[in-house]
């Protein structure tokens, strides 16, 4: 008699479930791969290329056709040039149709042949920045307007392609060299760390304070909680511009108030002066994101078992003791997870500083530097190099994060 054994291996049902699971995940996987993974690889690739904003289009031959002269001295001119100043374009040819009623007289230029009414010119390779001009004298039995229309109606077609910087296999460390040359990188890195560390800690402390305030039920608690979430819910662009207006050195209310209260004699340029601008953007960051920590800490507080506090009351613990010895240890988990998450996201923050100062006055963080390099200086390669540095930093952070998060369940 054979003994019954539990089934081993993957059964048919498990297989079917796994197949269904992957099927359900497929759309997400594909879209995320397309929009996240692919661009990330692209950024790493570009960071090794000297790639400027103007290189977005691959070099191509550009032609302009025009009708010159009048009466007997008529000619068609083709002006061909290489769109790129550096790259060579291979196999440049031009094809055009000679309209009815137009005859080419005289010798054709060397590079051209005429078969029937089809003109074909072969320019071979064009160096970067090279220009060519073809003059074809013509006679025509059409009046001038129709002639012009006829000549210009037939668009010449060009062939020939250059290597785009993007697809050529040559790699260079140029971008990285320039990035680490001089002390600028470390200044930017220092600013980023200041912004990130103080922004994160500030938001956490404020959030903790706010949560302690609201951790009791009273009428209107929901309303106050909603109110305290305003900074986070409102569009960043609206609140950032409001801050800029509020702290404007000329027409800002904050300055008027400070002068009136005798705190300062003359207007302070909050977002324009060095160290102050950095402090202000950090304060903005704290202001905008304390609601988030507040909400999470409050949610955690409300789930702490109240019997613990009752026991503490029986033992005669004072309010501060209860906070330090009971609440804080209970909140340590959520606080550390929040710290890590907020740290990473503050590190990633771009919009806020970009809108407040544009990265001026000593507030340029790494993320703003990506934009600055790529679009203000039009060097996409350099921007990508900064982006890769950011990614490397994030890789380190997320390593810590996952070490923690596996311990701290629930988030």
């Amino acid at each position, binding site marked *: 008699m054979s003994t019954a054994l539990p089934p081993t291996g993957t059964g048919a049902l498990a297989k079917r479930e*796994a197949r*269904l*699971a*992957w099927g*359900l*995940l497929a759309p*997400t996987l594909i*879209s995320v791969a397309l929009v*996240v993974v692919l*661009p990330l690889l*692209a950024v790493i690739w570009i960071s090794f290329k000297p790639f400027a904003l103007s290189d977005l289009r691959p070099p191509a031959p550009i032609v302009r056709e025009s009708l010159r002269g009048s009466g007997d001295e008529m000619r068609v001119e083709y002006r061909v040039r290489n769109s790129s100043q550096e790259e060579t374009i291979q196999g440049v040819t031009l094809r055009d149709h000679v309209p009815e009623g137009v005859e080419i007289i005289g010798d054709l230029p060397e590079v051209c042949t005429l078969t029937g009414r089809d003109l074909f010119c072969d320019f071979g390779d064009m160096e970067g920045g090279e220009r060519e001009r073809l003059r074809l004298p013509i006679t025509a039995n059409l009046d001038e307007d129709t002639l012009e229309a006829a000549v210009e109606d037939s668009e010449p077609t060009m062939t020939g392609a250059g290597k785009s910087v*993007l697809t050529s296999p040559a790699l260079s460390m140029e971008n990285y060299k320039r990035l680490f040359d001089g002390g600028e990188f470390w200044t930017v890195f220092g600013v980023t760390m200041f912004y990130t560390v103080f922004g994160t800690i500030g938001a956490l402390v404020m959030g903790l304070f*706010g949560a*302690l*305030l609201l951790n009791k039920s009273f009428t209107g608690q929901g309303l*106050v*909680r*909603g*109110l*305290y979430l*305003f*900074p986070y*819910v*409102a*569009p960043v*662009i609206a*609140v950032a*511009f*409001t*801050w800029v*207006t*509020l702290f*404007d050195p*000329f027409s800002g*209310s904050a300055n*008027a108030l400070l002068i*009136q*209260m*005798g705190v300062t004699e003359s207007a302070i340029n909050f977002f324009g002066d060095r160290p102050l601008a950095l402090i202000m953007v950090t304060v903005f960051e704290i*202001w905008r994101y304390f609601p988030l920590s507040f*909400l*999470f800490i409050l*949610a955690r507080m409300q789930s702490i078992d109240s019997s613990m506090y009752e026991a503490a009351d029986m033992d005669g613990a*004072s*309010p501060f003791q209860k906070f330090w010895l009971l609440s804080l240890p209970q909140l340590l988990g959520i606080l550390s997870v929040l710290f890590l*998450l907020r740290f*990473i*996201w*503050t590190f*990633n*923050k*771009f*919009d806020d500083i970009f809108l407040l100062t544009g990265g001026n006055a000593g507030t340029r963080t790494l*993320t703003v530097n*990506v*934009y600055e390099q*790529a679009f203000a200086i039009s060097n*996409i390669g350099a921007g990508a190099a900064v982006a890769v540095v950011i990614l490397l930093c*994030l890789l380190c952070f997320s390593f810590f994060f996952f070490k923690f*998060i596996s311990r701290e369940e629930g988030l």
Partner: protein
Amino acid sequence: MRKGFITGPVLGALWLIVMATTVAVAMSFATGAAFRPQLLLCLLWGAVAGLIYVRFAPRHALARLTISGVMALAMASPVGPVVTGEGVSSSAVLVAMIALGGGMHLAMAAILQDTPFGTLTRHEYEAAVIRFLTGFGYIFFTAIVLIPFYVMVMTSLKSQQALLQNPLDFSVEISKGAELFRSYVELFRDFNFGTYLWTSFYVSVLTVAITLAFSVPGAYAVARFRFKGQKAFSRSILLIYMVPMIVLALPIYIAFSMTGLRNSILGIVMIYPVTTIPVALYMLQGYFRGLPTEVEEAGLMDGLSRLAVIWKITLPLSLPALASVSLYVFMIAWNEFLLAFMLLDDPSKFTLTRGVAMLNSSEIPRQHLMAGAVIATVPIMVLFLGLERFMTKGLTAGSVKG
């Protein structure tokens, strides 16, 4: 330190500084006139008041009211806790007096309740400090949250001239009537804000729809099925959370420029959901895990297919979660600025945030910018306040995305 006659004056002095600053700032913002708190005098008055409030129990209301009243009346002289400048209307001074005196009396009575004059126990002392901190906290948080929004709304109603003349004067001249809303009218008439509003709206709704269509099946698979790579998958979702948008925006800009998707709503609608799918997936899978499997198994036993179970059982059960996620995604899409800023150049295709960014130029007056900010903020705020319960749940459900 733990003596009533020390604690009382210290808390009183600190509280009066808070009170005086609050009243001065509030009155300045409301009337535009000059109010200035005097810190040293505040310390003095507050200490005296604190002393009297611990010395005299509530039944000696006369002593308590007298000190608060005298202190408030002192505002008329140069030795009050708040001095007023030239040309402040007497009614404004009266309001400030009442606010200061009343606020001081009520708060001191509350903060120093059950605080004896002599030695305090640890409990009494800490309770008084906590009550002080609570009062301070409410004033502080309410002020920092409300002031920017107040400035935003009021600036949008002023004229450039009035603003430059006295940046503090936010008093609204009701007599101007519809003229007040000139900036708004001009934005809708000359700057196409109606179109932007509509574009933002349907882009956000489409984003929500696409996000849900992608993330519901994905979340269900992660929550319910066991398959190889499940753990790695949930981790990589979190990892994607951590990639900064600006890093992705760079190659997306290049790709969109090359394919001609830049400057098109289609491109925006393609890209927005992908930024929200990981968030939504993460939030939803947490919720699906919490649903009892028994109901679904019963459905399976009765012959429903897995997909039918999702459609007929799981989704109806998770409507609150779907609402939270939808709201959250809507908010992200509505508030999104970076991608719209980089990918849209054609004013006829702007979203609202991109339109507001356009107003930030020296040629366009400030009140237009603020009016634009108000237009961008109001719909999301209305939605938020109306559905606050869902929203806070959505925010805490598993997203800490900033």
